[in-house]
């Protein structure tokens, strides 16, 4: 890159851009480089708007309108009406998925959306209800860069989570322990810091927490067990709110959440000593998320060599990173769901309550080869001839007709070829090359290769040998050279890490 009076080396900014966001374009990178890393981090944490506009879907809007009459007639609905309703809900979740993916791919507030992606995995939840998903996503988006305690309480009271973890079935004399268990095991302390008895007592405190047809949290006093509970060494007539506060008082909560965030932002393999230091500060700050992020992103440790390129991008990070660099649009945006499903990270459909395990679990022989072929598909019209696994609780199969009629193998193959042709044909993708090409307008011919590699890769010293690539790149024009080299570089293992 052209050297301005660089405050610090370029790779630091590149590393920060991938961890605090989804990569960076050349112009922004050069702007960043004229300031210190500390200054850039402070600006990132300050510049986001505190109340993001809610992401809503057309299906959600229709359902909201119908809600009063639906809840009145719910018991009288015919089987057909119920089926239509389910379809509308699922269609909505699908479109919410696409709307959020689009938001991540275009927003200037990338740090927030990156954190929302983290909390979306931390508070893993899978409900076939678009309104509940919209509400929970918004709660997370409003608090992703706020206070963890506030976020925890808001998510715990969201209908999506109460439904997913069966707290509607948790009532006096018939406790259901699922909610209390997951709150302790996954959201706060983590395994090994509480007893089965604590789970039972916690479950009693959460009795009566529920939501009404409008999707508002309600506390049903007559279902609540208001007896004395013994929880983590304390005794009292605890309510659900008390339990969450007691959990926040535990240092184990700070450690567990910090460790998870460390895996997401710093390294798939946590450094226990570093996590402890960060967790103590997080606890002492009263769970202030921006303060924790500032500490991470400005620490010397964050920029140590073992942490550069140490994370395998999740499928969503990979796709959003590519979209932000060179945007592609399809007339049928469902293809983004097909990619998510083939690479096994579908937003709003985490694999289980634990969220996506991340790290090396993203990679197996098939998924790696698919990832390496993705740039060819997005930018060079290759066909994606992959049929992802069925999702039984899902309607996407119907929409994409991914489940061909059970006929002869030949017939199935025909249907399959047709689908692949329909959603993967090169006629349909529109690639916005202009902005991308424009970024290199001031770069001399001889420098192009290096500049492009520096923009796409974080671990510059180790990347693929550029001389080897020469015969795989189109030298017929400057434009073709940039395009083909970019696609080839994105098709490497180096581009899979950040």
């Amino acid at each position: 890159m052209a050297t301005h009076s660089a405050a610090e080396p370029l790779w630091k900014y590149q590393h920060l851009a991938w961890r605090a966001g989804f990569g960076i374009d050349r112009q922004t990178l050069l702007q960043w480089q004229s300031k210190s890393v500390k200054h850039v981090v402070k600006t990132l944490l300050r510049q986001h708007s505190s109340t993001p506009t809610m992401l809503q879907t057309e299906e959600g809007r229709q359902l909201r309108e119908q809600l009063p009459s639906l809840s009145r007639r719910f018991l009288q609905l015919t089987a057909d009406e119920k089926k239509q309703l389910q379809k509308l809900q699922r269609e909505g979740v699908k479109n919410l998925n696409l709307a959020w993916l689009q938001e991540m791919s275009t927003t200037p507030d990338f740090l927030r959306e990156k954190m929302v992606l983290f909390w979306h995995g931390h508070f893993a939840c899978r409900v076939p209800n678009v309104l509940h998903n919209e509400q929970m996503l918004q709660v997370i988006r409003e608090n992703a860069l706020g206070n963890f305690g506030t976020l925890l309480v808001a998510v715990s009271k969201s209908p999506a989570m109460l439904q997913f973890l069966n707290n509607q079935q948790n009532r006096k004399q018939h406790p259901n322990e699922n909610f209390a268990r997951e709150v302790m095991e996954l959201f706060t302390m983590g395994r090994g810091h509480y007893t089965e008895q604590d789970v039972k007592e916690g479950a009693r405190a959460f009795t009566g927490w529920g939501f009404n047809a409008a999707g508002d949290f309600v506390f049903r006093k007559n279902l609540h067990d208001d007896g004395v509970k013994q929880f983590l060494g304390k005794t009292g007539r605890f309510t659900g709110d008390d339990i969450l506060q007691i959990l926040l008082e535990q240092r184990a909560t700070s450690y567990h959440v910090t460790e998870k965030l460390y895996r997401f932002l710093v390294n798939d393999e946590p450094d226990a000593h570093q996590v402890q230091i960060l967790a103590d500060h997080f606890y002492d700050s009263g769970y202030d998320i921006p303060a924790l992020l500032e500490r991470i992103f400005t620490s010397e440790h964050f920029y140590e060599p073992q942490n550069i390129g140490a994370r395998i991008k999740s499928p969503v990070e990979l796709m959003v990173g590519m979209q932000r660099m060179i945007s592609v649009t399809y007339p049928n945006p469902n293809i983004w769901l097909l990619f998510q499903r083939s690479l096994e990270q579908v937003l709003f459909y985490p694999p289980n309550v634990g969220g996506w395990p991340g790290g090396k679990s993203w990679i197996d022989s098939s998924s790696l080869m698919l990832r390496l072929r993705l740039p060819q598909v997005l930018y060079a019209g290759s066909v994606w001839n992959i049929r992802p696994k069925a999702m039984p609780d899902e309607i996407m199969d119907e929409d994409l007709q991914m489940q061909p009629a059970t006929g002869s193998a030949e017939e199935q193959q025909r249907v399959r070829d047709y689908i692949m042709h329909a959603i993967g044909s090169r006629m349909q993708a529109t690639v916005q090359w202009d902005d991308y090409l424009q970024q290199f307008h001031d770069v001399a011919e001889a420098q192009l290769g290096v500049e492009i590699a520096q923009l796409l890769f974080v671990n510059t010293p180790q990347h693929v040998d550029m001389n080897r690539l020469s015969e795989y790149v189109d030298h017929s024009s400057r434009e073709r050279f940039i395009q083909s080299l970019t696609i080839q570089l994105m098709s490497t293992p180096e581009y899979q890490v950040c």
Partner: protein
Amino acid sequence: MLILHRREFLKIGSLATAAMLVPRFLKAFEQPGLSEGQKVLVIIQLSGGNDGLNTVIPYRNDIYYASRPQLAIPKTQVVGLTDEQGLHPALEGLKELYENGELAILNSVGYPNPDRSHFRSMDIWQTASDSQQVLTTGWVGRYLDAQCSGCPHPSVQAIEVDDTLSKAMKGAQYTGLAVHDPTQLHRASDDPFFREILKKPVVDDDHLQVDYLYKVMAETLSSADYLYDQARLYHEDGQYPDTQIGKDMKTVASLIMAGLPTRVYYLSLGSFDTHVNQQPQQQRLFKQLNDAILAFRNDLKKHNRFQDVMIMTFSEFGRRVSQNASAGTDHGTANCMFLISGGLKRQGVLNAPPDLQNLDQGDLHYEIDFKQVYATILNKWLEANDQLILGKNYTYLDFI
């Protein structure tokens, strides 16, 4: 062959010295696939929750007929096996296997605290976890972890006939290979650009993740080559039905016959999620399953391999005893499993029919933990340390 050697070297990461690994690689090219008597497991996943009560039918039980006024299979159509139970008419071909001692049926297989969600229950079956526990590795994947250090092509040890890999096939160290068709896989991975970048010398530095990806990539390309080269050695001429499961079973047979070292094959058939209008859907899928299994078994018998191969069918859950209002059934709990092989020690129906009188909220109680079935197969069929793979000891069953 030279190319293969060179890529074998590339596979060596920064964690091992080349000298240490060379002899094993060289040996790898000489050794035959399966040694004498080594057993093969073929898992068929019935996705979506197959209705077990209409699979193995309690055709003498009044409660069954009372609970399913439209859905119960009439006595006259049931393919009788024992005095109490028989098969769905579309599974007619299995009767011959039953009479030959090549079929074992387990009733009421499940697990404590059953989960009625597709995705969670499938997770439990594929990872062999408890209901309350979330595991990130699959049981076949952990079998690879336990058995494969030192295998020349670890991922070829377990093959899933599909485009993508199920969680069941993912271990901590090793994962199986997803392949629909060796030729297709070979074409997809045989990309000169990929071969070119793999020539990059492995850099021993802190970027172990990149290193790891290069290793997976090299391993995948070399497995794809190996599979393609081996599969070409055998021309499959068995008669298989023209269905997806038929083609998949044919692929499995041809890989077995080609002498691949693969110990576990994994296939799926579905969807059995029959909330609405169950009968035609189940009928159609069962006919496909029946015909594919029969063709596979005849093919293997012809080549005298059926005593070394066992098919195991499973589903994430069975369905509610009573039918619903849409001529279908809703999510349930315990279910039947088939074990099909020429090498069974005990055959026929191995335990009592499900108890329809004593239900848990309208669903069956389980009698056999599915992890006992896994443990039995891991220990007695695949000669692996089941306790290490499953995390605790389960009582073995006696079908092998």
